[in-house]
C-alpha cells in the first residue's frame, strides 16, 4: 500500500504541469483542478484508513534506502492532516469558481493552486528534514504568487511583508538543517532520532529551540506572528481561506512533529511551550478585538487559536497531544468556513469593514446561519466541534495541574466570543448600510443588488455550496467526535512512542 503515499503530491504536481499547458482554457483547467483535488482527497482518505488498519507506512523515493534517499512516510498525524487539508483545498477550489474574476483565474491561478496543494501534502508526508525545507519553499512561493495574483498595489505591498519574513524563516530553517547535519551527519528524520539523542543536551536543546523558532514563524506563534494579519486579508477570499485554514497549520504540524519526534525533551509538560501557547492565545485575541474588518479580525483569531493547538503540545501527554490534533482538525474546517463567509459578505456588500455593514442576516439568513455556527464553534461553545476540542484541552490541563494555561484558555474563549459577537452584531444584525456608505463600484455587486435595504442577497451556488459544505463538515466533526477522537488518540500515541515510525522508515 506504500505506493499510495506519494500520490497526493505526485498527482498535484502532474496536474499543475498539465494545467499550465492548458493555459487560457479556463474550463478545462477547472475540470482538471477539480479532478486532481478529488483524487488527492480520495487518496488521503485511503491513506487514513490504511494507517488505522496497518500502522505507519513509508516509501523511499527513487528506491534509495533510508536514511540515504528521501523517505515519504505517513502515520496517523500525517494522514489526518493530509485528509483534512485536501478536503479544504477541494472546497476552496469550488468556492473560487464562483469568486475569482476571470482575469485572475486566467493568470495561472489553477496551476499554482495545485502546486500549493503539492507543497502542503509534501510537508505532511516527508520524513526528511531537508525535503521538508523544500516542501516549505514550494508552499511559500505558490502562496506568494496566489497572494499577489492580480497584482493590486495593496496585495503586492502586503505580499512584501509576507515574503520577506518567510524568507528569513527559510534562511533560519536551512541554517538549522545545516547545523543538524553538521552535528549528526544525517537529515532523515527517523535516522536523526538516534543521532540527536547522542548529542550533548545543550546542543540538542538549542537545535530544538531553533526549529521551534523557525516553525514558530510559519505557525505564527508569539512573538513571531506579525506577518500574518498584515498579509492574509489582502488575498482573494478563496486564497485567503486556504491560507487561514491550512498554511499556519502546516507550521503547527512541523512544530509538533519535530518537537515530538526529534526533540522530545524530558517527556513532561513544557512550561516554555505552555507559556508561548498562552501568550499566543492572549495577544492574538486582543489583536482581534482591536480590529474592525472581518478578515483582519479572523486573521488575528488564527493566531489566538494556534495557541490552543500548541497548548496540546505543551502538555505533552497522550491526551494533550490528541486534544491538540483534534483542535487542529476542528480549527482548519471552522476557520476556512469563516473566511468563506467573510468572502460572501464582501462580495455582496463590496467591503468587509464593520462600520459599513449591517442587517446582513435579514437579507441572507442562510449566510447568517453559516457564520453563526462556525463563529460559536471558534469560541468553543457547545455543542460544536470547538467545544469538544476545548474540553479535551481543559480536562488534560487541569489533570496536570496546569491551572494558569487553562485559565488563560477559558478567558480567551470568552474574548473570542466577544469578538465574534462584534462581527455578528455589526454585520448581521442592525440596520442595513446606508446607500452612501456602500462604495459605488462594489466589485461584484451587479448581479446581487446589495444596496436596497430589504432585498435578498443570493450568492453564486458554488460559493454558497462550498461554504455550506464546510460548515456541515464542522457539524459532522462535532457529531462524530467520539470515533474521530479515537483516531487522534491513536495518532498521538504514535507520536509519543516512535517505535512504529522508526520501524516503518528504517526497517528492522
Amino acid at each position: 500500500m506504500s505506493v499510495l503515499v506519494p500520490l497526493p503530491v505526485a498527482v498535484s504536481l502532474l496536474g499543475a504541469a498539465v494545467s499550465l499547458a492548458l493555459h487560457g482554457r479556463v474550463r478545462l483547467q477547472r475540470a482538471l483542478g477539480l479532478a486532481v483535488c478529488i483524487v488527492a482527497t480520495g487518496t488521503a482518505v485511503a491513506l487514513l484508513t490504511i494507517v488505522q488498519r496497518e500502522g505507519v507506512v513509508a516509501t523511499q523515493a527513487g528506491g534509495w534506502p533510508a536514511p540515504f534517499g528521501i523517505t515519504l512516510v505517513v502515520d496517523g498525524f500525517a494522514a489526518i492532516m493530509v485528509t483534512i487539508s485536501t478536503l479544504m483545498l477541494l472546497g476552496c477550489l469550488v468556492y473560487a469558481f464562483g469568486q475569482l474574476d476571470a482575469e485572475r483565474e486566467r493568470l495561472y491561478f489553477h496551476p499554482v493552486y495545485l502546486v500549493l496543494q503539492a507543497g502542503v501534502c509534501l510537508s505532511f508526508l516527508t520524513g526528511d528534514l531537508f525535503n521538508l525545507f523544500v516542501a516549505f519553499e514550494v508552499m511559500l512561493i505558490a502562496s506568494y504568487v496566489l497572494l499577489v495574483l492580480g497584482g493590486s498595489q495593496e496585495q503586492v505591498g502586503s505580499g512584501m511583508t509576507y515574503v520577506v519574513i518567510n524568507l528569513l524563516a527559510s534562511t533560519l530553517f536551512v541554517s538549522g538543517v545545516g547545523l543538524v547535519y553538521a552535528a549528526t551527519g544525517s537529515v532523515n528524520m527517523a535516522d536523526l532520532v538516534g543521532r540527536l539523542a547522542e548529542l550533548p543536551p545543550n546542543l540538542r536543546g538549542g537545535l530544538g529551540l531553533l526549529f521551534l523558532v523557525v516553525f514558530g514563524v510559519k505557525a505564527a506563534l508569539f512573538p513571531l506572528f506579525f506577518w500574518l494579519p498584515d498579509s492574509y486579508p489582502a488575498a482573494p477570499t478563496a486564497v485567503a481561506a486556504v491560507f487561514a485554514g491550512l498554511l499556519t497549520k502546516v507550521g503547527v504540524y512541523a512544530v509538533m512533529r519535530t518537537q515530538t519526534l526529534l526533540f522530545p525533551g524530558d517527556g513532561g509538560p513544557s512550561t516554555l511551550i505552555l507559556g508561548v501557547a498562552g501568550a499566543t492565545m492572549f495577544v492574538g485575541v486582543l489583536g482581534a478585538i482591536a480590529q474592525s474588518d472581518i478578515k483582519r479580525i479572523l486573521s488575528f483569531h488564527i493566531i489566538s487559536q494556534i495557541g490552543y493547538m500548541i497548548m496540546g503540545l505543551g502538555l505533552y501527554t497522550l491526551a494533550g497531544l490528541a486534544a491538540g490534533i483534534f483542535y487542529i482538525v476542528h480549527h482548519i474546517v471552522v476557520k476556512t468556513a469563516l473566511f468563506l463567509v467573510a468572502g460572501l459578505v464582501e462580495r455582496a456588500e463590496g467591503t468587509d469593514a464593520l462600520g459599513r455593514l449591517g442587517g446582513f442576516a435579514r437579507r441572507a439568513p442562510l449566510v447568517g446561519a453559516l457564520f453563526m455556527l462556525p463563529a460559536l464553534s471558534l469560541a468553543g461553545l457547545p455543542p460544536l466541534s470547538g467545544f469538544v476540542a476545548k474540553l479535551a484541552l481543559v480536562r488534560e490541563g487541569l489533570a496536570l495541574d496546569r491551572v494558569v494555561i487553562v485559565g488563560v484558555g477559558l478567558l480567551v474563549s470568552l474574548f473570542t466570543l466577544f469578538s465574534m459577537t462584534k462581527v455578528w452584531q455589526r454585520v448581521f444584525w442592525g440596520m442595513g448600510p446606508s446607500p452612501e456608505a456602500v462604495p459605488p463600484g462594489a466589485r461584484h455587486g451587479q448581479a446581487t443588488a446589495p444596496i436596497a435595504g430589504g432585498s435578498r442577497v443570493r450568492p453564486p451556488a458554488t460559493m454558497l455550496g462550498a461554504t455550506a459544505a464546510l460548515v456541515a463538515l464542522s457539524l459532522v466533526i462535532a457529531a462524530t467526535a467520539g470515533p474521530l477522537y479515537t483516531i487522534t488518540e491513536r495518532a498521538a500515541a504514535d507520536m509519543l512512542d516512535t517505535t512504529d515510525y522508526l520501524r516503518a522508515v528504517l526497517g528492522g
Partner: protein
Amino acid sequence: MLLALLALHVAVALAAPTVAGRAGRWVFAFCGLAPAAVVVWASGRAGGILAGRAVEETLRWVPALDLAVTLRVDGFSLLMIALVSGVGVLIFAYSWSYFEPRPDLGRFAAALTGFAGAMLGVVVADNLFVLYVFWELTSITSYLLIGFEDDKEEARGAALQALLVTVAGGLAMLAGFVLIGSAAGTYSLSQVLAEPPTGTAVGIGLLLVLLGAFTKSAQVPFHSWLPGAMVAPTPVSAYLHSATMVKAGVYLVARLAPAFGAVVFWRPLVVGVGVATMLVGGWRALRQFDLKLLLAFGTVSQLGFMMALLGAGTPEATFAGVVLLLAHGAFKCALFLVVGIVDHEAGTRDLRRLSGLRHALPITFAVAVVAGASMAGLPPLLGFVAKELAYDGLLADAHQLGLAPLAGAVAGSVLTFGYTARFLWGGFASPVDVRAGAPPHAHRPSAAFLAPAVTLAAVTVVLGALPGLADGLSAAAATALQEHHEPPHLALWHGVTPALWLSVLTVVAGVALFATRGRVEALQERVGGLPGAQEAYDRAVDGLQRLSEGLTGVVQNGSLPVYLAVILLTAAVLPGGAVLLGGSLASPPPLAESWAQVVVTVGILVASVATVMMRRRFAAVLMLGSVGYGVALLFVLQGAPDLALTQFLIETLSVILFVLVLRHLPDRFSHHRWRLGQALRWVVAVGVGVFMFGFALMAGTARTRQPISRYFLENSLPEAGGHNVVNVILVDFRGLDTLGEITVLVVAALGVASLVRASRRGEPAGP
C-alpha cells in the same frame, strides 16, 4: 424517548422559518407541538417518577472525554419540566396573539423552540458536560431572542451583556465541573451527589460552579444583565427571564446543596448572596416606572429568595424552595403576560402614564391581582403557601443558618409586598400623573390573548386553595433532592405558628411601605441604587477594548524592520542561550586551515559590513555580490569547483538583475527615520552573528557517527552510474528535492509573468 423529544425540538426549530413563510403566526402553533409533546410524555411517565423511579437514557458521544448524553428525570426534574414545557406551551399560545404578522417570526419561533429544547436539556441532563452544553445553548438562544429587534442599539447591547455575563460564568462552571468530576471519578451528576468528593480542588470547583449559577440566575453582583434583557419581546421575558432560564442556576444549586452544603464556605456564601440579591432586587423594584423593569427587579429578588432557600441545603428550606419555584413560575409568568397585554392594548408600560385600566381591562386586572397577591404572599394563593413554608423552614434550620437569613427573607418579602402594590396601583388604579400626558386609550384583548395568563392565575388559585394537588409533585421533587427526608404535606393553614405571625408582620410592614411610598422614593433618590454592577460591566468591556487597541498598536505596528528584528532576536536569544550557556567546547576545531581562508574570510566580513553601510544602492549591490564571490572562493579553497562555479553564476546573475532593477529606483537609499535605533540594529546583527558562529562551532565538533555522505561517495558510481557525486545527489539520490526546487522556479516565473501582465493592463503593480 427523551432524546427523541430533544431531537423534536431541534427539528421543529429548523423547520420553523419555512413554516412561518407559509403559515405566518400559526408557526407558533406548530412550534408549540414540541413542548406539548413533552408535557404529554411527562404526564404519562409521571406516575413512576413520582413513585421514585427515575427515567434514564444515554447516547454515546465522546467516550474518551466521558462525554455522553446521559439524561435522567427524577421528581425534581419533573417539576422543572412542568415549568419548562408546561409554561412553554402557554408561551407559544400567547405569542400567537402577541405578534403582529411580520416576516421574521420564523427566526423568533425557531430560537424560542430551540430555547425550550435547551432548557429541557438543562433540567434532565445527568452528565455534567452535557448539562454545560445545554446551559450554554440556553445562553445562545437567549442572546438571539433578546436581540430579536436587532435594529435597536439597546437590544443588541442588552443581548451581548446577557451573553457575555452568562457565558463567562458558564466557562468557570465548566472548569469547576472538570475539577469536581475528576475528584469524584465520574462526570455523572447523580453519582457525584451520591458520593460527594472532598478536597481543596473540589472546593475551588464548587466556587467556580457557583460563579456559573450566580451569573445565570442574576444574583448580586451579576444581576444587571437581567433588567437589560427586558428589551426582548414579552413572551421572552415571561418565559426565559422569569419562569425558566434564570432558574437554571437555582436548579443547579438546589441539586448540589444537599451534598455540598457542609462545605465550609457553601452556606454563608450561597445563602448570603441569595439574601443580598433578594434585598437589592426588591429595593430596586420599588423605584421602577416601567412595569416590565419593575417585574424584572422583582424576579431578581425572588431568584435571590430561591437561591437562599435551595442553597441552604437543609430539608425544610429545600422543600420551601421547591414550592416557591413552582409558585414563582406561575405568578411571575402571569404578571409578565399581563404586562404584555397592557403594553399591547394601551401602548405603554410606564406606570406614570397608565391609569384606570381596571375598568378598561377587567379580566387582565383580575389576573394581575391574583398573580400579584400570590407574589406578595397573600392567602389563599400558592405564593402564600410557599412563603409560609420558607419562614417555617428558615426558623427550623435557624440552628444551622442563624437568624440572619430569616430576617433577610422577611425584609425581602416586605419589599416584595411593596413593589407588588406599586405594580397593581400604578398599572391599574392610580389617577394619571398629569405631567406625563393623557392616558392612552386601551383596547380589549382577545380571549386567546388572555387565556394563557388566566390559566396561570387559575393554577395559582387552585394550588393555593387546594395545595394537596401539588403535594405529590413537590414532595417528589424535594425527595429527589433530600433522599432521606420525608417532606411535610402542603397546606394552606398551618395553625397559629411563628411563621403566621411573620406573615402578618410582612403584610403590615408592606402596607406601611406602600403608604409611605412618597418618602421611600425620596429616600431612594438620595441613596441611589447599588453602585457598580452595571458600571463594572461597562468598564470591563470598555477596558478590554482599550487594552486591545493599545497592546495591538504596540505589537502590530506595521514596521517590517521591527518584525524582522524581533524574529532575529528570538532566534538568537532562545536557542543561542540554550547552546552557549549550557555547554563547553571540549576541543575547539582549527578556526582556519590556511592563510588564504583567513584572507578571504576577512574580505567577506568587510564586504558584508560595507553592504549595509553604503548609502548608494549600486554600491550596496556590488558589495553584496562581493560577499557571494568570497563564499565561492571559499568553496574553491575547499576543493569544490562545481559548487564554486554555481555560486559564481548565481552571484553574477543576481548582480545583473539588481542593476537592471536599479535603473528604475533612486540612486540613494531614502533616509528613513530610524525607528529602531542604529545601536539596536548593531546589537541584533552582531548577536545573530555570534549565535550562528557559536552554534556552528559547537555543532561541527559534536558529530559522533558517520555522515550519510559516505554512502553517496561509495554508491554514486556503482549504483547510480555517475562520476560526479554532487550531480548524482541532485538528480538521483535526492531527486525529489530537485523536483521541488524546479517547481519553485517555475512558480516564481509564473508569478513574475502575472505581475508583468497585471502592470501591462495599466494597474500599477508596485516595485
